C-alpha cells in the first residue's frame, strides 16, 4: 500500500509525437484508479512509465514520497497484470507465482505459504502443478493475478487485464477483482477502454485523450458532472446527446434555438450563462435525463420516433432531429414503437452546458 504521484509526466516518441503530455495525478493510499480513454490516448504509456518499462521524457513518478522516475522496474516494488497475461509458458503455475518471490530471496517455507495463499484467493489451487498451456484464458489470467498479488507490491498495475476474456467472464472477474482489492487494500492503477468496467470498479476515473488528462473524478462525477464535451460523449451508453444552440433574449426569457428546436431555458440553467458572452452554446443531455410526457404543455419539444431498441430493463428510443440522432432511455413501460409522436421533457438539474469554442463545461 502506498501513495503515487505523477508530476508533469510526459513521453515523447520521435521528434514531436507525445504519447503522454503533462500528466499530473495524486493517488491516495489504497485507491482504485482507472485510466480510461480510447485507444492511443496515452493510458497504457502512462502506466508503463509508472512501471518503469517506458523511459520518461519529462516529469516525475513518485511512489511513497520517493522519486522512482529513473529506477529499474524491479526496484519500484510494483507488480503488473498484462493484457496478454504474460505468464511464463515454461514454468508451472506454482513456479510462475513463486518465481518473483525466489528472486526476492524469500525463505522457502514462506514462499510456499504465500503461493498457496494467493492461489486460494484467485481460486487456482488445483492447477498449481499445471503448465499455462493446459489452462484456459480465464485461468491464465488468474495465474497472472496471483503472481502479481504474491509479491505484495506497493502499487498494483493492470493493463487492460480483462479485455482478452469473453464478455461473461469479464463481468465476473470485475466483481472478483474488486473483492480482492477491498481485501488487500492495495493501491491499484487499472487501464481500460471499457467505460462500464471503469464505472463499476473505480474509486476515481482518470479520463484521458491524446496523451493528456481530460478529467479526474469519481464515477458519479465523470458521469453526471462531465468536465467537457469529450468526457460527456465518451462515457455512457448511449452517450450524451449534444445540441448546438443559438442563444437569444426574448420577453425576459433566455431562449435557445436551432433549425429544428426552440425553447426557453429554465431559470436554474439560465443563470449559468450570466457571464457567458458567446451567442452559441452546446447543450449536453444524457439519454436518461429525458422524460417522455403525455402533456404537450409540459414538454420542450415534440418529435416522431425513428426506432425503438428494447433492452429488457429499459428501452432506448431514437429520434431524428434534423440530421442528428437523439437517444432517450425510457422505462420498459409503456411500450413505444416507431412513428409514435412523443412529447419530450428533461430533468433541468441534469443538463450540462458547454462552451461552443473550448467545449469546456460552463459552470456559471
Amino acid at each position, binding site marked *: 500500500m502506498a501513495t503515487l504521484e505523477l508530476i508533469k509526466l510526459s513521453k515523447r516518441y520521435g521528434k514531436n509525437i507525445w504519447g503522454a503530455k503533462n500528466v499530473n495525478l495524486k493517488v491516495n493510499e489504497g485507491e482504485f484508479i482507472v485510466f480510461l480513454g480510447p485507444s492511443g490516448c496515452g493510458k497504457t504509456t502512462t502506466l508503463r512509465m509508472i512501471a518503469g518499462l517506458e523511459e520518461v521524457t519529462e516529469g516525475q513518478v513518485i511512489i511513497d514520497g520517493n522519486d522512482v522516475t529513473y529506477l529499474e522496474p*524491479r526496484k519500484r516494488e510494483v507488480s503488473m497484470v*498484462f493484457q496478454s497475461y*504474460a505468464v511464463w509458458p515454461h514454468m508451472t503455475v506454482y513456479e510462475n507465482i513463486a*518465481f518473483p518471490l525466489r528472486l526476492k530471496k524469500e525463505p522457502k517455507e514462506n514462499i510456499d505459504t504465500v503461493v498457496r495463499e494467493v492461489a486460494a484467493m484467485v481460486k487456482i489451487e488445483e492447477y498449481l502443478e499445471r503448465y499455462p*498451456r493446459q489452462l484456459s484464458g480465464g485461468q491464465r489470467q488468474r495465474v497472472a493475478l496471483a503472481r502479481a498479488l504474491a509479491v505484495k507490491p506497493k502499487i498494483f498495475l493492470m493493463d487492460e487485464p480483462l479485455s482478452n476474456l469473453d464478455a461473461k467472464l469479464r463481468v465476473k472477474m470485475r466483481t472478483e477483482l474488486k473483492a480482492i482489492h477491498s481485501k488487500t487494500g492495495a493501491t491499484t492503477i487499472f487501464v481500460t477502454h471499457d467505460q462500464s468496467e471503469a464505472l463499476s470498479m473505480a474509486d476515481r476515473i482518470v479520463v484521458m485523450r491524446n496523451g493528456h488528462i481530460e478529467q479526474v473524478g469519481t464515477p458519479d462525477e465523470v458521469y453526471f458532472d462531465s468536465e467537457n464535451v469529450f468526457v460527456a460523449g465518451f462515457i455512457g451508453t448511449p452517450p450524451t446527446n449534444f445540441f448546438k444552440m443559438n442563444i437569444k433574449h426574448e420577453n425576459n426569457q433566455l431562449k435557445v434555438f436551432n433549425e429544428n428546436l426552440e425553447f426557453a431555458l429554465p431559470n436554474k440553467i439560465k443563470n449559468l450563462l450570466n457571464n457567458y458572452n458567446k451567442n452559441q452554446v452546446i447543450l449536453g443531455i444524457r439519454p436518461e435525463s429525458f422524460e417522455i410526457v403525455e402533456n404537450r404543455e409540459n414538454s420542450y419539444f415534440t418529435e416522431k420516433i425513428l426506432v425503438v431498441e428494447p433492452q429488457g430493463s429499459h428501452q432506448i428510443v431514437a429520434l431524428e432531429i434534423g440530421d442528428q440522432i437523439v437517444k432517450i432511455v425510457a422505462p420498459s413501460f409503456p411500450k413505444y414503437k416507431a412513428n409514435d409522436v412523443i412529447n419530450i421533457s428533461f430533468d433541468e438539474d441534469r443538463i450540462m452546458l458547454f462552451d461552443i469554442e473550448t467545449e469546456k463545461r460552463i459552470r456559471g
Partner: protein
Amino acid sequence: MKNTLEKKWVPYLLITPTILFYIIFWFRPVLTAIIYSFFDESNIFTLNNYIYIFKDPFFKQAVFNTTIFVVISVTLEFLIALSLALIINKKFKGSQILLSISLIPMALPAVAVGAMWSSGFASYGWINSILYHFGIIDANHKILFLAGNDFQSLMLIILIDAWQVIPFMMVILLAGLQSIPKDSIEAGYIFGGTKFTVLKKITMPMLKSSIQTALILRIISAIQVWLIIVMIYGYRRIPVLLEEVVFYKKQVLGFYRVALAYSVIVSIIVSIVSIIYLKVSGPSKGRKYKCTKVNHIKKYYIQHYFI
C-alpha cells in the same frame, strides 16, 4: 457405398506420386548403397570394406578431427550467433542494416568461401596485403597462415567455417527471439529480474526449441564438413569423415565400395549423435516440433550422403 469406398482410396491415390518418387529416387539408392557396401567387386558378401576403413590410420584421425571440429565450432558459433541475435533483437538504429550485412556470408556457396579464404591466407594473399598496406607487417615478415601444425590448421578452418555459418544460426535464434512475446520479458523485469536473470530464466528457456533446432542442424552439418577443408588444404592434410568419403569416391580408383561403407558409417554416427542430443536436451516446450525436427534431420543427412 461407392462413395465411402472412394473416400477411402482417394487419399492414398493422392499421395501415390510422392511415394513413388521416394521409392525410386530415395529408398532405392539408399538401399543399393547399403547393400553394395557389404559386397566386393565380384558381388561376393564381404566385410572387407568396413575392415579396411577401421584399419585405415586416416579413419581414426578423421574421427578425432571431426569431433574436435564439431565441439569447438558449434560451441563458438552458437555463442557468437546468440550474442548477435540478442543484439540485433534490441532493434536499435541501424539494427536492420547490421542484420543484412551479417547475412552476406550465408548467401555465399561453400566453394566460394573456400576460394576466398584460401586466396586470403596464401603467403601472397589479400590478408597479408592488407596487413602490409597498413604497416602492421613488413614485406619480409609475411604471416604464413597455412603453415601451422594440425591443431592450428583446424582452428583456422573453424574460424572460416564460423564466418560462414554464424548467420544461419543467428537467423534461427533471431526468429525464435522475435516470437517471444514482449510482455513475458517485461514481466520478468517487473517481478524482480535483472537483465541477466531475465535472460537466463525467461528468455533462454522460451528460446529452447529454437536453440535445439539451431544446434541440431548445425551439429549435423558440422559432422559433414569437408569442402572448405579441401578448398584450403587439399585432401588428407586434415582428414575429416566426409572428406574421406569424397576422397575414396573421387580421388582414388577402385575404392567406390569403401566410400559407400564410409557413408553408412557417417550416417550411423550422425543418427546416434542426433538421437543422443535430442534425448539429453529433452522435449522442452517445443514438443510439437520434435517430430518435424527428427524428420528434418533424417532428410538432411540421407539426401546429403546417398544421392
